[in-house]
Each structure stands twice: as structure tokens, then as C-alpha cells.
């Protein structure tokens, strides 16, 4: 470490997006070259630029050690904590060596790098009732809960409310009302808490909301953005799993029906029968689903698309009417897997956050033979 810290100061050029809505002027790019040791942070660079060149640069910061979550910005287009991003790493990811600094996305800019967290992030957090609604009667002393269940919710408790995941959420980009990754991760913190009394109501609320758990596009952006490994998208998938699997909540957004339709079609055929997925997602997870009013309406709306598909031979009448199936012996084996797993009294899940990895991952991009070598010798 000493060697790293002994590296002499270098020059770094920051290209910063500036904007003061009150000025009435359009946003513009500003550029400053600062001098700092390469291991120092982008935040320190911004503060140096502010001290030396332009005292009007707006940046919010406090702890400077990735705890308070105040200094969320975009570095070279990616969300990051300014205090947690080293200058040398930022330069490596920069085009032409110039580090690009912008405010976070999906939130209005108050000034320069400061965004309005109240208007978006905190409003969404409040939306999910972010406090414990305790089971009654409250015990005289502490609650006794399984250790694993608390380790489990610790992952979402690690959130420092920096807004990085909100900034990068692709669903929110097209649907600003989406409750979003940070708030839904917070929702899991209470849904997953055995002391909470409102699991069903919380989930029903989030499932029925058109901008709730089924509005997530599964793009993994929040997983990448999070500096604390909260895995918001993973938490959203768990909310869906508990809502549909444990509480059998049928939502008006087709979330549960889509899941049942998809899972059922694979059970029936081994591979997906696309032509049936749409009507069943709208009308219900059976062949009769297409006769439900909601499915009929959607099928009618989809007719032009279907005709275009048929005209271009993307689809054929036989593919629409008859599924492609895997060989029947294999299908039976697949169905046996379904039967065995779905008949378990409780879902069996491996949560790597709780158990960790017991071995080094074996697959490497280098390309190893398909046939694995004996356990432990091919890590």
C-alpha cells in the first residue's frame, strides 16, 4: 500500500457538466485540470477544482468515506460515489483521458452535480412504508428470530441511500413513476423481516401498483450501480417470488399470470411456445386463457403484429397452433423435476449473501473443456 500512496501527484482533467436552472441558461460543459496523487478520489479532484478555479461548482458531500451516500454522481457515464472512485481508475475508463463528471440521472438537477433526491428518491422510499409494522403483541423483551432471516435483510440494510441505482434505472427512464430499485429493496427489508406483520398487504400493494414490482425490466443496471452490493433487482425478484409463490397474489398487471404462463408452458412443452405466452399472460395460465376478455382485447391489439410476423414468415400458422416440444422421454424427465421441486413444502433457495461461496468459481473465460475435472482440481 505504501507504494501506491507514494506515487507523485499527476495532472487529471475533469470535464464537468454544469447547470444552474435558476440562471435560465442551458447546461454546458466546463473543464478543469487539477493535480493530485492517482489514488485520491474524484471527489477530492472536484473539491480542488472548486477551491482553485471556480467556487460556484455545486457538489454535495459529507463523510468522504463511502458511508453517508451524499456524493453520488456519474463518472464517465456510470453512477458512482465520487469519494469512492479513485482518479487513476476513473482516468482508465475515460475517453481520451478526460474524466467526465455529470449529475446522477432520473432526478432533476438542483445545481451542477446536486440532484433533487427529495423529489424522486426519498418520495419513493416513503411510498413503501419504510418502517416495521410489528406483530402484536410486542414482546416484553427482544424479538427472537432466526439468525439467517436477519442476515438476509442485512443486505438491503446496507443501502446508504446514495441514489446510484435510481440514477441508472432503465425502467424509470421511460416510466418515472416506477417505484424503483432503492425503494423496492427497502420494501424487501420489511417483507423479509419475520417481525413484520404486514407481509401480504405490503406485497399486494406493490404487486397491484402498475409501477410496482412488475414494472422492473430486469436489466441488472441497479445491481451494477450499487456501491454496497444491495442487489436491488435480486430483492425485487424475491418480492415477486414471495408475492406469487407464498401469497398467490394475482395482480392486475399480468405479473403473476405471465410467470405462471411461462413456467407452465415450459412444463408442458420443454421449450417456450411464444404464441400462447401472450394470451395466457393476459387471460390466465391455461389453453382457455385466450378466451378471457383481457386476453381477447390484447389478441385483437396484437393482430397487426401477428399478421406482420406471418407475412414475413417469422411465424407460421402451425407454430401458432402447435407447440414445438422436446422429445417425450425428456419432457417426462423435465416434468418429474417440476413435480419434485414444486411439491416441496417450502421453496429451497441458496442465498449466496448468507452462505457465501465455499469454493472459488471454476468457470473461467479462458475456455475449459466441457467435461469438468474432479472436484476441487479445476478452480
Amino acid at each position, binding site marked *: 500500500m505504501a507504494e501506491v500512496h507514494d506515487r507523485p501527484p499527476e495532472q487529471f482533467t475533469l470535464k464537468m457538466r454544469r447547470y444552474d436552472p435558476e440562471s435560465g441558461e442551458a447546461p454546458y460543459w466546463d473543464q478543469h485540470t487539477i493535480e493530485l496523487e492517482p489514488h485520491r478520489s474524484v471527489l477530492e479532484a472536484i473539491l480542488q477544482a472548486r477551491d482553485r478555479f471556480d467556487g460556484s461548482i455545486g457538489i454535495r458531500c459529507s463523510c468522504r468515506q463511502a458511508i453517508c451516500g451524499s456524493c453520488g454522481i456519474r463518472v464517465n457515464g456510470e453512477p458512482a460515489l465520487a469519494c469512492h472512485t479513485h482518479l487513476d481508475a476513473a482516468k482508465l475508463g475515460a475517453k481520451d483521458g478526460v474524466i467526465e463528471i455529470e449529475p446522477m440521472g432520473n432526478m432533476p438537477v438542483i445545481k451542477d452535480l446536486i440532484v433533487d433526491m427529495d423529489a424522486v428518491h426519498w418520495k419513493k422510499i416513503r411510498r413503501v412504508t419504510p418502517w416495521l409494522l410489528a406483530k402484536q403483541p410486542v414482546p416484553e423483551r427482544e424479538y427472537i428470530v432466526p439468525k439467517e432471516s436477519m442476515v438476509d435483510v442485512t443486505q438491503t440494510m446496507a443501502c446508504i441511500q446514495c441514489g446510484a441505482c435510481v440514477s441508472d434505472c432503465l425502467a424509470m427512464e421511460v416510466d418515472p413513476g416506477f417505484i424503483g430499485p432503492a425503494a423496492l429493496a427497502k420494501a424487501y427489508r420489511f417483507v423479509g423481516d419475520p417481525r413484520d406483520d404486514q407481509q401480504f398487504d405490503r406485497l399486494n400493494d406493490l404487486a397491484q401498483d402498475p409501477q410496482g414490482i412488475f414494472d422492473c425490466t430486469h436489466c441488472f443496471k441497479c445491481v451494477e450501480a450499487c456501491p454496497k452490493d444491495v442487489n436491488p433487482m435480486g430483492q425485487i425478484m424475491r418480492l415477486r417470488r414471495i408475492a406469487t409463490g407464498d401469497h398467490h397474489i394475482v395482480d392486475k398487471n399480468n405479473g403473476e399470470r405471465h410467470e*405462471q404462463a411461462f413456467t407452465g408452458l415450459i412444463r408442458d412443452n420443454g421449450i417456450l411456445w411464444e404464441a400462447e405466452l401472450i394470451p395466457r399472460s393476459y387471460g390466465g395460465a391455461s389453453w382457455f386463457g385466450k378466451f378471457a376478455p383481457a386476453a381477447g382485447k390484447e389478441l385483437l391489439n396484437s393482430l397487426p403484429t401477428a399478421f406482420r410476423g406471418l407475412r414475413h414468415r417469422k411465424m407460421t400458422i402451425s407454430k401458432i397452433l402447435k407447440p414445438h416440444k422436446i422429445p417425450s422421454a425428456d419432457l417426462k424427465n423435465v416434468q418429474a423435476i417440476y413435480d419434485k421441486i414444486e411439491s416441496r413444502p417450502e421453496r429451497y433457495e441458496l442465498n449466496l449473501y448468507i452462505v457465501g461461496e465455499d469454493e472459488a468459481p471454476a468457470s473461467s473465460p479462458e475456455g475449459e473443456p466441457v467435461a469438468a475435472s474432479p472436484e476441487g482440481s479445476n478452480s
Partner: protein
Amino acid sequence: MKVAYWPGCVSRGFTPELHGSMAKVAPLLDIELVELDRACCTGAGVIAEHNQELADTLNARTFALAQQVDGAAMMMNICSTCQGAQSECQERLDANAEYREHVNSTLAGEGLTYEKGLTNKNFLWLLVEEIGLENLRSRVKRPLTNLKVGPFYGCYIVRPRNRLGIDEEHPRDHYLDQVIEALGGTVIEYAGMRKCCGFPIITMNKEASLKQAGRHLGDAADADADCLVTPCPLCHLNLDLQQPLAEQVVSRELHMPVLHLPQLVGLALGLDPKDLGMSRHVVKPTSVIDWSTSVVAAAA
């Protein structure tokens, strides 16, 4: 190179031109495809959302079948979503011996066992890491000169980086750019190239889904792309099949052809656009066909 080949569902369903073009391109790259026709769907993330153990076991079954293919160097897929869904399951299976045993006990009835350490690569990764860009370049018969191609990566093949083995040494999130360049084309960068096509929410929030597709197509058009190329058939469905609807949602004409990766490779390797199934696209790849016709005419 012999590979255990997982074509996925959609390439045999609504994007038959993908499976077809892969079959045509493989021999030109000395890839022998042994199709895993006994395997089932990866679940595309939806089965995992329903029941994680079920998704892991179904995919472990596919991995076990791949490991039985004699002489195969690895498993290969042609669908980003399959890659992402399989990588997620494999991460859990490879991380924990006890869990792997538990999953294998379900497969035991069929006499199958998944052994940790499968290598599973999307065709894009295989192109760059196994065949190599220089090798690919040397096989090009008709360089894509002056063809402006926008890469559309989709989500499942670029995120999360750790799980997908993306690092400085393996910049897999830049491979499409590298392949387009190796084929002689011009890479067009645009805002949506690594964003979501919207397909996963098409039945839940159609407008948001189509807005995503429409915006990316519009961004690519504004950046002057002749066409897009994608390694994901689900992205193709939203970007091509649904493009006329996306046009209505974003209130603009788009006319942006979207090619599957093997189609673009096949074009540069000298195959005819029609043989690569380009007539099966909803948005006719006129720009690509015109380009191809002009190149052939110039050569004559």
C-alpha cells in the same frame, strides 16, 4: 471446434432466421454444432423468479447433457438471455458443493450429474475468445466497408460484470464493437447500445416496453446507423417485430433493420442476405441488402 450447442427457444420459434443463419455460418468458421435438442428452456429469468431451485435444476440438467457431448470443447448459446439465465444458475451451482449435490440428487433419476466447471459461451464470446478476431478477419470475403452498424448488446450479456466474467482482459461488453470492426464495418455508438430493449415487461407495461425499444432505435437512427446487430433474439423481437408499434409510441418513423449476430457475420463471410433469412424480418433490411448488392455489383 466442436461445441455442445444450445440454440434456445426463440431461435426455433419466432426468430427461425437466427437458428438458420447460425447453422450456415458455423461450418465457415469450422464450428461443429452438436445440438442439445433434449434440453429445456433456461427459464429466461422468469422461472428463477418463480422458483430458484427449479431454474437451477433445469439448467443443471442442460449443463449435464452438454457435459455428455463427446469431444465438445464447451457449450455455446446464441441467446444473450439464455447466457444470462444460465450464468446465474451456474454461479449458484458452482459456488456451493452442498447445493450442487442437492440439485444433482434430483437429476439422479435420469442418470445425469452436473459437474462443476462448465464453460458456456455465447457465440459472440466464442467468436472473439476462441476463433479470434484476426482469424475472423482472415475469413472475411466481403468486408462490411461503409456499412454503419450499431451494436445492441441488451442486458443479460453485459451485466452483472462479475458473474459474466467481464474484466479488463475480457472486455466482453465491447466484443460486438470489435466483431463489427473485424468484419470491416463501421461501429455506430448511440445512447441505447447497452440498455434494455423492453421485452421483459411487454406484457406488464407495454407502453414503457415499446418506449424503450423506440428510443434506442431512434437514437441509432439519429446516429446515422444503417442497421443494428444483436446477440439476443428477445431483443430482436422487441426491436424488429414490435418496431411498427414502437414507432407509434415514440411518434416517429424508425425503419431500422435489426440483424442477428450470425447474420452479420455470414454477410461478411460471403453469404447471401436471403440465405441468412433477412427476408424474414419485419423491418426489411433494405440498407443492408442495398449495400450487399452494390458490393457484389462492384466486384463483378
